[in-house]
Structure formats: structure tokens, C-alpha cells
């Protein structure tokens, strides 16, 4: 059933400080509304329980991509389209650009934001695996101040996250890669090539030095209640030679033990488990090449 529109309020704060004050004045009362690509779908389905929103879409303090020698900092309202258009992101953070290009359609990419993708907390979101591989940090602001958290510890359970009432995601910070030898791999598996929701999403990066894996980071979406970093598989791989059949099998088993894919409308746990193993093998081929 469609939503009863008069039950929903939305106001436009004049700046970030005003938004944070409004949220602090009534903890849990007001929630942020960015590009609407998730919330409007829930509204139309009559499944949007929260009723009061602050329109943050025009807040300049949450926009823009800033580049320094060490970091690239993306405002929470950076859209998928803006991610794809950015030259430095395209060169140094291709996993994020691929994820942005494979999230929804062009129309969705013009409205959907990175901050929204994170705060929506779907385990099937496509930018989080890339953000985990890049060891992103999230800057969170409230009327009381600001704090930074590693993105890997932000999601604490299915749709649960380290974000209190009155807090907003302000930006996402990525450390620029120091080595050009970093090999990066991204693959989203969906029902069709364009605008599918992931059955499984795999992002990884690694570096081989003197024939051995010196650095390896692997993250997956849609295989657990939250987006997951495959720490056990990484541990097994670190320091080893990338081409080794026994190592591959051991790493695939380790990965299989740390993911917990389910059967749902989009796929089965068994299929997801099988594909996760195959994608790990494909990543190791890329790493060895």
C-alpha cells in the first residue's frame, strides 16, 4: 500500500550546523534525506516507518571531492556519477569507480550518494567492498563535534551501524596508494549486466614483491549480514607465492568458512559460495599476472 503523504514531514536546513542542531534538539526525531534513491522506494511501498526528515541534498559542507598529497576525501553527498567523472579516483581507486558505474542506472547514479549507500547499510551495496579494500575512514559529525572511524568497523550487524541519533556521515577519506604495483580486481555478479542488485560483489587489491604476496585486501558484498573483509583468506595468502594450487584451495576454504551467504529472492547460498571461491581464484590470477 502506498504511503499516506500528509504523515511525512521534511524540512531544508540552511546549513550543516543548523541541520545538526535540529537533530540534537530532538534525538532520533529527525533523520537525513539525501538523494532519495532508497527512501523513496520504501515510501512508495508503504514501508517507510520514520516520518520526519531533514533534506540535506543542498548542504555544501557535505559535497565535493578534496585531494591532498596523502588523501582523497569525498563528501558524503558525492554521487556515483561524480565518482566516475573524477580523474584521480579513476586512476587510483578504480574499484570505487567500477562499483559506482555498476550501481543502479545512470538516473540512479545522478542521485544516489556514497554517504547514503553507507547509511542505508545494505549488505548488498556495491561501494562498501571497495571502501573496505581501500581501508576508508568515515568522518561522523554531530552538534557535539566530529569523530573518525575505520569503515571496516562501521557496520556492526544487519542494518546496524556505528551511528548515533543526531550524527551524520560527513565524508569518506581514502589514503592514496603509495605503490603503482597494486593490482586491483572488481567483479559484481548480478542477474543482468545493467542495474541488477548483486548476487555477490567482490573487490580486492594486492601487490606481489619478489614473487610473494606482500599486500592483499579482499572484501565481499551479499555474502553475510554486513559487507565483509575476508581476513582469514588474506592471512593465508600473505607472504605466499600467488600461483600455487594447494594455496588456492586453502584460501578458498578459508573464505568459505568466513562468509555466511543465504538463500533469498536474488540467489542461493550455495551459488554465492561457489562464485565466491571462483572469484578468489580469478583475483589470484590477476595478482600473479
Amino acid at each position, binding site marked *: 500500500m502506498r504511503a499516506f503523504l500528509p504523515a511525512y514531514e521534511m524540512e531544508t536546513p540552511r546549513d550543516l550546523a543548523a541541520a545538526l542542531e535540529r537533530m540534537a534538539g530532538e534525538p532520533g526525531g529527525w533523520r537525513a534525506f539525501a538523494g532519495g534513491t532508497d527512501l523513496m*522506494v520504501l515510501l512508495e511501498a508503504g514501508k517507510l516507518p520514520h516520518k520526519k526528515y531533514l533534506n540535506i541534498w543542498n548542504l555544501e559542507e557535505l559535497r565535493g571531492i578534496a585531494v591532498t598529497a596523502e588523501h582523497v576525501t569525498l563528501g558524503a553527498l558525492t554521487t556515483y556519477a561524480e565518482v566516475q567523472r573524477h580523474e584521480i579516483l579513476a586512476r587510483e581507486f578504480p574499484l570505487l569507480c567500477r562499483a559506482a558505474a555498476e550501481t543502479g542506472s545512470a538516473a540512479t547514479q545522478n542521485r544516489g550518494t556514497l554517504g547514503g549507500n553507507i547509511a542505508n547499510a545494505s549488505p548488498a551495496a556495491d561501494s562498501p567492498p571497495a571502501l573496505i579494500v581501500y581501508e576508508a575512514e568515515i568522518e561522523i559529525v554531530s552538534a557535539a563535534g566530529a569523530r573518525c572511524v575505520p569503515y571496516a568497523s562501521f557496520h556492526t550487524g544487519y542494518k546496524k551501524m556505528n551511528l548515533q541519533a543526531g550524527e551524520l556521515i560527513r565524508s569518506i577519506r581514502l589514503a592514496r596508494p603509495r605503490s603503482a604495483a597494486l593490482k586491483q580486481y572488481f567483479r559484481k555478479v548480478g542477474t543482468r549486466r*545493467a542495474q541488477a542488485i548483486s548476487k555477490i560483489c567482490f573487490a580486492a587489491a594486492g601487490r606481489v614483491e619478489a614473487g610473494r604476496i606482500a599486500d592483499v585486501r579482499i572484501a565481499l558484498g551479499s555474502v553475510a549480514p554486513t559487507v565483509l573483509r575476508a581476513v582469514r583468506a588474506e592471512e593465508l595468502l600473505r607472504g605466499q607465492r600467488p600461483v600455487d594450487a594447494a594455496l588456492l584451495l586453502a584460501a578458498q576454504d578459508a573464505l568459505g568458512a568466513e562468509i555466511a551467504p543465504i538463500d533469498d529472492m536474488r540467489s542461493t547460498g550455495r551459488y554465492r559460495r561457489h562464485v565466491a571461491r571462483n572469484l578468489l581464484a580469478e583475483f589470484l590470477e590477476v595478482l600473479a599476472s
Partner: protein
Amino acid sequence: MPAERARKIRVSCVVNGAAVTCETYPLARLLDVLREDLKLTGTKEGCGEGECGACAIEMDGALVNSCLVPALQAEGAKIRTIEGVACGGSLHAVQQAFITHGGAQCGVCTPGMILAAVNLLARHPRPDDAQIRDGLSGNLCRCTGYMKIFESVVAAVRAAETRA
């Protein structure tokens, strides 16, 4: 009835070059405002959940699905719908190509397809085949007339090249 009710708000924007103001609820879908308040029924509703692109319009030059835009966020925006694509009495090259090459069947996806194609050509005046496919990939056609639609856009690009 819930005790607390949002009041209607006034939203002012420019639609197809004309300044308009309407009174609506903050979370009313821009799609409904266009169709029901402004009588611009060229924009269609397909899925109502951002999957099909039938309700695609341009907002400040960007292609968006109007079913996912709350009215409040249209404040101050420059909006173009299918009614604003033809210039005076002459059709846009994409519209003409859809007619010539059979790009429209039942017509429900057509306004969104044309807006997506027009927006693509504004960004990439000489798109290759892959760019055209990508530019149309957010629009579903349930008549499955995809090849004719694709060929129509290719023809519109060629027509523009011939004129240049």
C-alpha cells in the same frame, strides 16, 4: 487520522522554461506533481521504484527518475520533461528518429527512452555503440523493442553528423 500532519509546502521551479509554483506535500513524488498538478502527463509511471526509467526527466541537466525525487527537492530546479524536448514546432532529432525507425511501440517507455537518449547526446554528441547501450541501460521496454530503439538513437547520431 494521525494527530500530526505535514502541511503542504509551496515548491517553485522552472519546468520546460516556464516558472511554476505548486502546493504539495514535501515527500510527494515529483512524478505525481508533474502529471497531476502541472498536467504534464507525457512523463509515465512504470515501476515506481527507480528500476524502469519510464519517468525519467532532466533536473538541472541531469537525468533522474522522477518517481524517486521528493517534491521539496525540486525547489529552484530547472526541469525538462518530454513536453520540453521538441523546440517550437520541430521535433528533436531523437524524436524524429524514433518515428522514422519504429522506436516506439506501446509508448510507455518512450518518453523516458527519449530523455535518456537526449541526455546522452548532450554529454556525448558522438557516442559509440557501447555508449548508446550504456546510456539506455536504465530504461526498460516491456514490448522488448530494444533493437529498434537502439537503431533510432544510432540514426539520430548519424543525422546530427550529416548536418554538422
